[in-house]
Structures are given as C-alpha cells and as structure tokens.
C-alpha cells in the first residue's frame, strides 16, 4: 500500500533528523504506522512559550493524497483551535493539502499558526473575538494561563 510505504519513508526521515529540529518530536505508534503523536514546543515570544503541546495524528489510508487528521490533545487557547476538541483550522489540513507536505512539515506549519493566529477564521470564537476587538492583552493573558495550566509539565509539582 502506497500510504504504508510513504509513512515508512517519513519514519526513517524522522529518525535521521531527530536532532535537527528540537522543537518537534514525532513518535510513531509502535503497533500502528497510521497513528502518530507529536510534541511541539510553543514558539518563543508567544503566550505558548515554555509550553509543550501534544498533537494526535491519524493518517488515513489514502495518505499522502489526502491530509492527515491532526488535533491538539493538550488544551490550548488559540483562535484557530477548537477549545473542546483540539481540532485545527489550517488550510493545508483541508483544501490546500498536497503530498508535498510531510508529518514533520505539518507540525512546523502548526507551530507557525501558533505564532500567527488567524482571528478571521476562528474555531474558538471567544479567542477570535478578543483579537478582533484589539484586546491583545486579554488574548495573551488567557493563552498564557492555559499554557501554564495545561502545557507546562512541571509547574504544578
């Protein structure tokens, strides 16, 4: 199956580049090459800084002709991420998908989305409204609070 072969190549690439991109840790499920987990570091100079966010990645059989399903497992306050489900509104995960993307570069695109929220296509309307009304301080403090609560592993200990 083409998807399995492709994922195996991605797996090898991930092993080879493990040290190259320390902001992304991609782990393949031991028993199922169609299920992956990623840990991505919140980018600097954003309210997500210092957080480590877990993504769950489900790869459909038609991959790479269709996109992987990616969502946040770690709670995040971001206009383009559904607060309850972690679903992500990102063009390349839907209509603008192309096999030129890889699981690794998808993670990079999600990190870019964390740095550059798009409040005009919100999945989290409360968050989108804060940004659209110009309340950047309000957005930052909410986002930072949730980062501390959910994404900074040792803060409670």
């Amino acid at each position, binding site marked *: 199956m*083409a998807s399995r*072969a*492709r994922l195996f*190549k*991605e797996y090898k*690439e991930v092993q080879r580049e493990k040290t190259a991109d320390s902001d992304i840790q991609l782990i393949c499920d031991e028993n199922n090459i169609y*299920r992956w987990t990623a840990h991505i570091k919140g980018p600097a100079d954003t309210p997500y800084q210092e957080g480590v966010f877990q993504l*769950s990645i489900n790869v459909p059989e038609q991959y*790479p*002709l*269709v996109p992987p*399903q990616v*969502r946040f*497992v770690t709670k995040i306050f971001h206009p383009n991420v*559904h607060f*309850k*489900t972690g*679903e992500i509104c990102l*063009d*390349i*995960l*839907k*209509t*603008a*998908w*192309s*096999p*030129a*993307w*890889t699981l690794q570069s998808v993670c990079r695109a999600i990190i870019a989305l964390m740095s550059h929220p798009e409040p005009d296509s919100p999945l989290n309307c409360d968050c989108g409204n804060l940004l659209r009304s110009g309340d950047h301080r309000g957005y930052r403090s909410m986002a930072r609070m949730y980062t501390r609560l959910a994404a900074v592993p040792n803060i409670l200990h």
Partner: protein
Amino acid sequence: MDTMPDLGDRPRDDEIMAQHYAIRAEEAEKMSFIGDKEPLSSLAAEYESGNAIFKKKIEKLGETYGALRRTRGDGNCFFRAFMFSYLENLLETRNEAEAGRVKDSVDKCKQSLLDLGHSEFTFEDFLASFTDQLDGVQDGSLSADQLVENSRDQSISDSVVMFFRFITSGEIRKRADFFEPFIVGTSGLSVQQFCRSSVEPMGEESDHVHITALSDALGVLIRIVYLDSSNGDGGNNLDVNFHDFIPGQCVQEQPILKSKPSVVLLYRPGHYDILYEK
C-alpha cells in the same frame, strides 16, 4: 483514550471530508477520468438548442478536428487530459526518441525540486508512475488499451497528476521572476502562496500559468483550442481561437521547438477535453 468528543450541531472535519469524498465518488460513477473517443458531432449535439455562436464555432472546429475524448470535470482535467493525450500520441507515433527526451526533462525537474528543498521521498512515487508509462512506450509493453486502462485507474492517474502538479509548481517557483507578474496580476497571491493553494493541491483548476509551466518543464508543445461565446469582430467570420504553448519560448537558453503540437485540448470555460485532428 483517543476519541473525538461530541461537538453537538457542528459536523466534525472528518465528517465534512467524508462527505466531500462521497460526492466525488458519485461524480466518478457518471464519468471516468478519460472517456471513449467520440465523433465531434457529439459535441454539436450538446449545443443543439443552445448558443448560436457555439454552434457556428463547432462547425468551424469540424474543419480541422474530427473527434474528441471527454475528461472528468474534477479540477484535475487539464493534467489528466495532458497525460493521456501526450502518451497516446507517443504510442501512435512510436516515438521512442521523444520518450527518452522527456525522461531527461523529468530528471531535470527532479533536480529542480530537490534544489527547491523538497525531500525526494515526497515525490519519487509520483514521478515513477509517469516514467513507468514512458518505459512502457519505449519497451513496447504499453498497448493502447493498457494506456486507457491506466488512465482510468485512480491510483495511477492521481499519481501522475500529482507528479505534474509537483513539476508545475517547481517550474513556477524556479522562474518566479517570470511568472510573478501573471500570478500577482490575476490572483493577487505571491508565487509561493499561489503554488501552495492553486497548483499543488489536487482538484485545483489549471489556467495559463499552469499550462505554460508544464509545457516548459517537460518541453512539450500544447495547443489549447478555445470554445467560448466570444464573437470576434462580430461579423460572419467566426474563428475558433487557439493558443500554442511553445516550450522554451519564454526561456532564453532553451531552443524553441517548432513542431506540430502533440497535445491538443479543447477548452470550454472551466474544463479541458482532448481533441483529435482529422
């Protein structure tokens, strides 16, 4: 546990995608990627009670062209039509030298993609689906019937379309300075954005920019014949417009190829079919 919580009234993304694929599958039943060869009269029949300009133009078209082959309108029709028309022509003319030449072009495209930063594993399988067909022409193992079958096979056809999308995007980005004015002028997007949103994804329709880039990347002359309701000078001399995409015309270091177009497509707004000369 990794389950998707219930969202209530809003459909989930995977549900939206599933519906999207279901619609596509329904379309697929109506029309295969590449249809059978039909006489041009079947085109005339479509417009029997329609636009007078169309009718006149189809009559005019009949002076030069005798048949057409329809393609499925799924946004990939230009690439699928190109794949079939080019390979069919190659088979019929038994042009092994041309098959070899286009393989060299494919190698150059591959190098360009690597230079642009693509990992080889992201496109090598798609590339192979196209070169497999070329190998078949060269070693004689590809028959006309097999070509039709391959072109109707979803996995082969999608793969080849994807390869064309990769090299079209690669050609545009490699010569960004040349393509930029056309892209910015018509779409308002940057070259990168345009390639990402309008070239690389499956199902995105092709226009002049895509055709120019693919023609240049592979060095293949493509003729597009336009069937639309434009009325020329308004007189009785209705001409059917066509445009030849001549590879190398816009690239100085390449010799300009002046030969018969091997790919002739009929364009009706939003769709490409394959045309056959008489």
